[in-house]
């Protein structure tokens, strides 16, 4: 629905189409009994006492309402997907030019490798900020081959990068259902009930300990929380780029988690030195002294190595299970 059509809609029709508008009016202490009017008439009908409480003039207030409406419209129309992202080299900590650039398509996984302090966080910061040679690294980010529009930088509705790390916890005092519903509502999504069920189902595929939608999010175990965060990010987050930091010991099926994100056409960055995770990436970006050193493409030989590593991984898990059961490890190999 375009802005043009909106100007013929009454307040109540707009609220029906964009439910968060109601909250906007409530936050401003504006009356809800006059929403049968057109916006123009509605704002004209407000008395001076109500206006004074908002601290805004009639015209300013209506403008603000229109800005918010536009913001909601943007959330609704924007699917947040991007085709590709290119990161153009700038300079490292010593001011040495970076000779590489990184081109990533949606559905691709890129692993970041390099010691602590090699500049991984700064790189992700550049992506999040859509750097245009205006950060210390002098890097530049283009989306689908173009310089991104300025408003992308500050608009929370279009946040480009979603982050997942070991340190993140749920802090809201709500159930899994309420939590997912709230997130979906903030994206102005329809079919919320259905979406919630899908996300819970996906999350349960990632964790060994299954959970229902009526438990409080704060009572989920570490593995369950991580699983829910990943399933939620895949399905409901606006961000087309997902950054994962150190989920080595998260207690979830990491391969499935990555598959889920990629299946939603996300671009996934993962900072890891876990060989199996690292080899799941299509590309590997090597960082050193704040700079991008090189981009490695995963080779056929490496794919073979991945299979062997996965076999070893299964053996180790098997051994762990045997230990748990109080068995001997003699028949492992």
């Amino acid at each position: 629905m375009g802005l043009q059509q909106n100007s013929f809609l009454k307040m109540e029709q707009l609220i029906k189409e964009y439910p968060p508008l109601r909250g906007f009016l409530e936050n401003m202490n504006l009356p809800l009994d006059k929403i049968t009017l057109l916006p123009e008439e509605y704002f004209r009908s407000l008395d001076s006492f109500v206006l004074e409480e908002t601290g805004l003039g009639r015209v300013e207030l209506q403008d603000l309402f229109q800005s918010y409406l536009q913001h909601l419209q943007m959330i609704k129309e924007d699917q947040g997907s991007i085709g590709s992202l290119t990161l153009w080299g700038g300079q490292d900590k010593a001011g040495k030019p970076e000779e590489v650039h990184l081109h990533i398509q949606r559905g691709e996984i890129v692993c970041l490798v390099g010691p602590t302090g090699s500049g991984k966080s700064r790189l992700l910061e550049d992506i999040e900020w859509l750097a245009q040679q205006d950060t210390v690294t002098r890097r530049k980010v283009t989306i689908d081959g173009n310089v991104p529009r300025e408003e992308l930088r500050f608009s929370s509705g279009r946040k480009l990068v979603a982050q997942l790390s070991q340190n993140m916890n749920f802090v809201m005092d709500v159930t899994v259902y309420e939590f997912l519903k709230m997130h979906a509502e903030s994206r102005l999504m329809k079919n919320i009930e259905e979406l919630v069920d899908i996300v819970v189902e996906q999350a349960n595929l990632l964790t060994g300990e299954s959970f229902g939608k009526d438990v409080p999010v704060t009572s989920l175990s570490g593995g369950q929380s991580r699983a829910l965060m990943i399933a939620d990010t895949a399905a409901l987050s606006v961000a087309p780029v997902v950054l994962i930091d150190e989920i080595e010991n998260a207690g979830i099926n990491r391969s499935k988690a990555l598959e889920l994100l990629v299946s939603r056409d996300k671009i996934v960055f993962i900072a890891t030195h876990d060989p199996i995770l690292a080899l799941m990436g299509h590309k590997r970006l090597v960082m050193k002294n704040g700079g991008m050193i090189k981009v490695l493409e995963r080779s056929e030989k490496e794919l073979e190595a991945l299979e062997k590593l996965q076999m070893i991984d299964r053996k180790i898990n098997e051994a762990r299970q045997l230990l748990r059961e109080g068995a001997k490890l003699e028949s492992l190999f």
Partner: protein
Amino acid sequence: MKLLTVCGPPSSGKTSVITKTIEILRQQGLNAGVVKFDCLTTHDDALYEEKGIKNKVGLSDSLCPDHFLVSNIEGCLRWGIDQGFDLLITESAGLCSRCSPHIKGVPAVCVMDNLMGINTPKKTGPMLRFADIVVITKGDIVSQAEREVFAFRIKQVNPRGKILHINGITGQGTFQLAGLFMEAGDIRTLKDKELRYSMPSALCSYCLGERQIGEEFQMGSGKKMVFDEVK
């Protein structure tokens, strides 16, 4: 000199955000100072001192801290100019969530943190609603969904504010904030400037030190709650 007002609920990360941003500004050869407004006591002067940031503390004591701020802001501006700052930042806590130190024509920043709960933006009032820049902190310890919902709720209160996510510990995002700070215009005087929102009308006997409870001790502006009568 550039002037900015930074406010936000207690413990939201104002001092960390300001300190990290000033460190970035310094790297660019700029000299910034801080005036910290607080009510009873503050430890922040020591934190600024530790980082070598020139600062001045104003304790409002028995007065409303925001009334105190407005009454002293011109003096602060003169002090900042005398000190030769390129940029002066005022920091205040907006303790009752009703006040706002923001001045028309002076860039206004509000710092909120992700741990406050999703209903906090709604309750925060003018200091959030009239901010040009909203900084959200502590995003590194909550889930992506909570960050998104929190930012959404902030937009619902302040649709035009620029939202920046900042990590007060690592300083992630302060480079961008420093850039926005530098967009502020130069200010020589605050004469004829106006607050963005009125201060609360507080002029009753309790403002003047009355402690006794009871109808006969209440004078000045008052407001009574309405309760349902039991039949």
